């Protein structure tokens, strides 16, 4: 039985043809502008205040637009970009080690396993350079050499040193830079900030995205906000797996509700599993903690040669250790891309035992001071969580869900198929293909927010301002009434199972059947089980309290309800893509060595899904490679 139908193909209408190096320049030139005096009459809603949303809201405010910014946290500074550790890539070539815009472009297209758009990735590589300049000027305290210049390090999937970092807190420092720029605009009255507000639906009027319905998480009040354009910067959906490295509040509701209103959802099955996380310690586990990929610069990954070895790590002699990444991939060694490292770890161990990440050699080579300088806060974090001291015993690590490459479909202008709806950062699908390289999420979030969106949104806003709206408009009233109805239903079930218990069960199912390795039988099983479980959710969930107060269970219930629907689409997407690529590994499609086997003849396209309420409809966007020839990724 097929779980989907196919509709007409789609294409990106906004990318200019011609030399890839000048496409972005030419698009910016062809995009219409809004003159500074008129920008005051254009309102833009930005949902989410992470690297993408925070930088976009600040920059649009600087340009003179009226901006309304929303986040569910108590302050825009808390968005989960803050937890990104390792660094941000930029093709500065300060190291003189052969880097260039073209090489970053090439590495990213290859790292994404040839499932991203060349034009978007090339633009990202070009803009990477400006991002570092902007952040340094804001006072982001990047690591520096003794000469006062910026330090860099290497990340997975690259053989050059192009990753700028601020100890293990790069995301925090970049986000604070964007947050401070945002607060400056708030102070200037150009951005109206709504913290502790959650977007629950998108308002579409006459085919245009015109606003959002939000719930004030403190009072419970439902209200509408209108604008000439709506920007979603609401992050990824990794929490569909229940356990992930995402913050507890990360959710899919904003993009899922937009999808239900007509926005296409692209490549939902492309999820990234990060190889170096702290293993699960028990059933109470509420989230997983990432240990930065940068650790693989100096740490060596190994398992005991004998899988039944019960000795403590330090008692296992050198000759009885298998440094499996160095053995299998001699030229990239411990720095192979994330998907490859994760699967290798999974194939060689399990989630209880994990694999070792060992710094003994680095401590000998560099000394404890240099190791502390580079990784001190990560070591402390590890010790805090596990009680073990990584300066003395190797860390135990295991892969965990970390990032979602899929997201709402956007064109070159980052505009979804709904006019006026823009999607930026992790919430869109555009730049990472089937696998994201380390230190590229921060780069993409800031590229989208500081430069791409502000560079082209004028082309759409030039048609505005659009007609004034109020809650009496039928389309608005319908949307609000749906939101209210949903909350009422969740509260009315009053069953016997907690939201958390459903989330845990859904997450386990997704991890088992749509996680690191997928196959047809498992996906079909999941597609049978998810609707049953969802049905049970709506029959048995227990949400205490009322809608007219701070109610954290109600917030979570709404998010989990949307995860149920998204989970099904992820499995449909994973089932239809009968190839392995990047983070999507179908066990039926592998080489004799167990590596991912792509099928470019059949699957060199973006799968963009349309919501119908019945079977989802697949629209294919063909991918064209003119500058990087698709080859089998080899890191051996």
């Amino acid at each position: 039985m097929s779980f989907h139908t196919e509709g007409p193909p789609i294409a990106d209408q906004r990318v200019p043809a011609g030399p890839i190096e000048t496409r972005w320049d030419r698009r910016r030139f062809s995009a219409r502008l809004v003159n500074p005096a008129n920008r005051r009459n254009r309102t833009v809603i930005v949902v989410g205040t992470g690297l993408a949303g925070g930088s976009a809201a600040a920059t649009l405010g600087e340009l003179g637009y009226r901006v309304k910014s929303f986040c569910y946290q108590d302050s825009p500074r808390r968005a989960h970009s803050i937890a990104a550790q390792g660094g941000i890539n930029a093709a500065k070539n300060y190291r003189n080690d052969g880097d260039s815009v073209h090489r970053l472009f090439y590495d990213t297209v290859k790292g994404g396993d040839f499932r991203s758009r060349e034009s978007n990735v090339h633009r990202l590589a070009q803009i990477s350079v400006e991002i570092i300049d902007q952040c340094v000027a804001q006072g982001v305290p990047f690591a520096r050499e003794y000469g006062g210049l910026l330090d860099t390090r290497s990340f997975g999937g690259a053989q050059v040193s192009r990753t700028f970092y601020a100890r293990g807190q790069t995301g925090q420092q970049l986000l604070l830079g964007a947050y401070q720029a945002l607060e400056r605009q708030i102070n200037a009255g150009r951005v109206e900030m709504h913290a502790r507000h959650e977007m629950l639906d998108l308002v579409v009027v006459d085919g245009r995205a015109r606003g959002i319905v939000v719930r004030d998480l403190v009072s419970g009040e439902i209200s509408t906000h209108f604008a000439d354009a709506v920007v979603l910067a609401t992050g990824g959906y990794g929490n569909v797996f229940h356990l992930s490295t995402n913050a507890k509040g990360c959710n899919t509701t904003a993009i899922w509700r937009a999808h239900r209103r007509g926005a296409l959802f692209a490549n939902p099955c492309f999820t990234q599993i990060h190889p170096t996380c702290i293993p699960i310690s028990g059933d109470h586990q509420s989230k997983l903690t990432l240990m930065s990929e940068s650790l693989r610069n100096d740490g060596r990954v190994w398992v005991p040669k004998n899988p039944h070895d019960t000795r403590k790590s330090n008692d296992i002699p050198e000759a009885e250790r298998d440094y499996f990444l160095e053995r299998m991939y001699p030229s990239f060694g411990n720095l192979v891309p994330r998907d490859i490292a994760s699967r290798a770890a999974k194939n060689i161990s399990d989630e209880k035992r994990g694999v070792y990440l060992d710094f003994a050699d680095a401590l000998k080579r560099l000394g404890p001071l240099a190791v502390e300088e580079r990784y001190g806060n990560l070591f402390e974090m590890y010790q805090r969580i596990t009680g073990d001291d990584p300066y003395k015993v190797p860390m135990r690590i295991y892969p965990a869900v970390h990032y979602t490459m899929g997201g709402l479909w956007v064109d070159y202008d980052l505009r979804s198929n709904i006019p006026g709806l823009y999607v930026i950062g992790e919430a869109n699908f555009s730049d990472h293909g089937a696998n994201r390289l380390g230190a590229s999420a921060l780069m993409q979030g800031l590229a989208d927010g500081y430069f791409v969106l502000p560079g082209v949104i004028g082309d759409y806003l030039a048609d505005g301002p659009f007609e004034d709206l109020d809650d009496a408009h039928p389309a608005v009233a319908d949307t609000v009434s749906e939101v209210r109805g949903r909350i009422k239903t969740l509260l009315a079930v009053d069953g016997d199972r907690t939201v958390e218990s459903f989330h845990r069960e859904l997450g386990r199912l997704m991890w088992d059947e749509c996680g690191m390795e997928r196959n047809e039988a498992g996906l079909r099983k999941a597609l049978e089980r998810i609707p049953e479980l969802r049905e049970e959710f709506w029959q048995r969930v227990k949400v205490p309290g009322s809608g007219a107060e701070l109610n954290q269970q109600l917030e979570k219930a709404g998010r989990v309800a949307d995860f149920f629907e998204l989970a099904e689409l992820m499995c449909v997407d994973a089932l239809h893509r009968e190839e392995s690529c990047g983070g999507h590994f179908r066990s039926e499609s592998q080489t004799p060595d167990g590596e991912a086997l792509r099928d470019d003849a059949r699957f060199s396209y973006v799968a963009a899904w349309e919501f119908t309420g019945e079977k989802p409809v697949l629209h294919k966007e063909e991918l064209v490679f003119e500058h990087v020839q698709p080859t089998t990724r080899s890191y051996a």
Partner: protein
Amino acid sequence: MKLTLRIWRQHGSSGRLVEYVMDDLSPDMSFLEALDVLNEKLILAGEEPVAFDHDCREGICGMCGVMINGVAHGPQKATTACQLHLRHFKDGDVLTVEPWRADPFPVVRDLVVDRSAFDRIIAAGGYVSVPTGSAPDAHALPVPKPDADTAFEAAACIGCGACVAACPNGSAMLFTAAKATHLGVLPQGQPERYQRARNMVAEHDALGFGGCTNTGECTSVCPKGIPLTTIARLNADLLKAHTTRSDR
């Protein structure tokens, strides 16, 4: 392991401590995971779960924070409540859990407080005015490594509010000084340095935070170990702002 939690419950303008006995906890749990377990039980028993703020659970977002036996974020040094694990308590311990208490941080519900005053302090001047696109090349302005390190150390503040909760005066001076130091020691932050110090402190005072009397409680509970010397730097900048600058 067993713990008795005496938790502040508040819905509306007044509250009280309510005792909960938990006897099936694991020492590997984080403190917030113990609250999760409690809430699951409360929900199934038809009671209201305990409201508490949290998000990343990695000690970096700054959203969580409670007083545990009178100490902000609990007994472990340099650790947020979400990273505090039960192995640091003894079987049978009784823990009193309360929200941050300070006038500018009104209680929203149970352990949740409103810290938006912190955003207003930053909005008053905690930035470098550099609109997107106007930056010179990143290497145009070298920064001596010791200055970069001092800036980083101060920039590590997560804005959790523990410093205010711990201070007998309810002062947010450590928070304010961390930002003033981060930007004030970097060359990028020089043009606005004194104005920044003056404006942030004026906003801090207007919001109702108390004055600093150098008790040092703030730095001892700070999960990121922001040093008291940041306050000395801020005071020096403030003095200069009010005495020598022409733009005062």
